[in-house]
């Protein structure tokens, strides 16, 4: 996906031939959110596998960690809005 900030650098920075759009450059907040999302995906997979395996002890910590990741992502989003 191409992301573009409205406050973008100089006129010729990161342009592709034949258009006036700056090239993709993910911000650190976006990159962090992606890391959190991947961690949550992994946690969800572990929770489902733990349930199927009959090892329910995995599920509670996975849910808590996933909640922490969500809180962190939400704070990043809030900071970006402000």
């Amino acid at each position, binding site marked *: *996906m*191409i*992301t*573009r*900030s*409205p406050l973008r650098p100089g006129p010729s920075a990161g342009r592709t*031939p*034949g*258009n*006036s*759009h700056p090239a993709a450059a*993910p*911000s650190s*907040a*976006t990159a962090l*959110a*992606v890391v*959190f*999302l991947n961690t*949550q*995906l992994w*946690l*969800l997979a572990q*929770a*489902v*596998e733990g*349930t*199927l*395996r*009959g090892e*329910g002890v995995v*599920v*509670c910590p*996975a*849910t808590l960690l*996933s*909640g922490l*990741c*969500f809180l962190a*992502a*939400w704070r*990043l*989003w809030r900071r*970006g*809005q402000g």
Partner: protein
Amino acid sequence: MSGRPRAAPHPPAPPRWRTAFPVNWEEDRSVTRREFTSFLTLASGFLFFATGLVGAREWWRGRRPPATPAVRVARVAEVPVGGVQLFHYPTADDPCLLIHLAADRFVAYSQKCTHLSCPVVYRTTAREMHCPCHHGRFAAADGRALAGPPQRSLPRITLTRKGEEIWATGVKV
């Protein structure tokens, strides 16, 4: 002077990269970082919710341990030696296999593989339970894991013979 109109000059041929990648940048919808981060946050919330659902389901199941009533499984004559009968115990969501190993020797196990809950099948020639998903194998005699990813034995169903009938009376994990 001639009255014939002059032919319009040919437009220049588009560059090769434009024909190879015909993306109209003016019509292409770009997504701002803010929008993208909002989407990521939404997806993060969804994943948290999904993990919470798994946790809630696990908690709900652990809250009420299933009762193990005595249930009639089959008549002795219905399952020949080497034969298998499918039944459900202790609830309708728990498939199990009754195996007639030898004359007067019956065993029963949960059909859910202890790796990822795939249904196991009995292989008469090898006298083993086989999981087709990841090729786990269990001994039919005692249910212990022999090979493949499963680490734990299959839950064993306690059987009781009442005359010519076989009854399931409990689960040994």
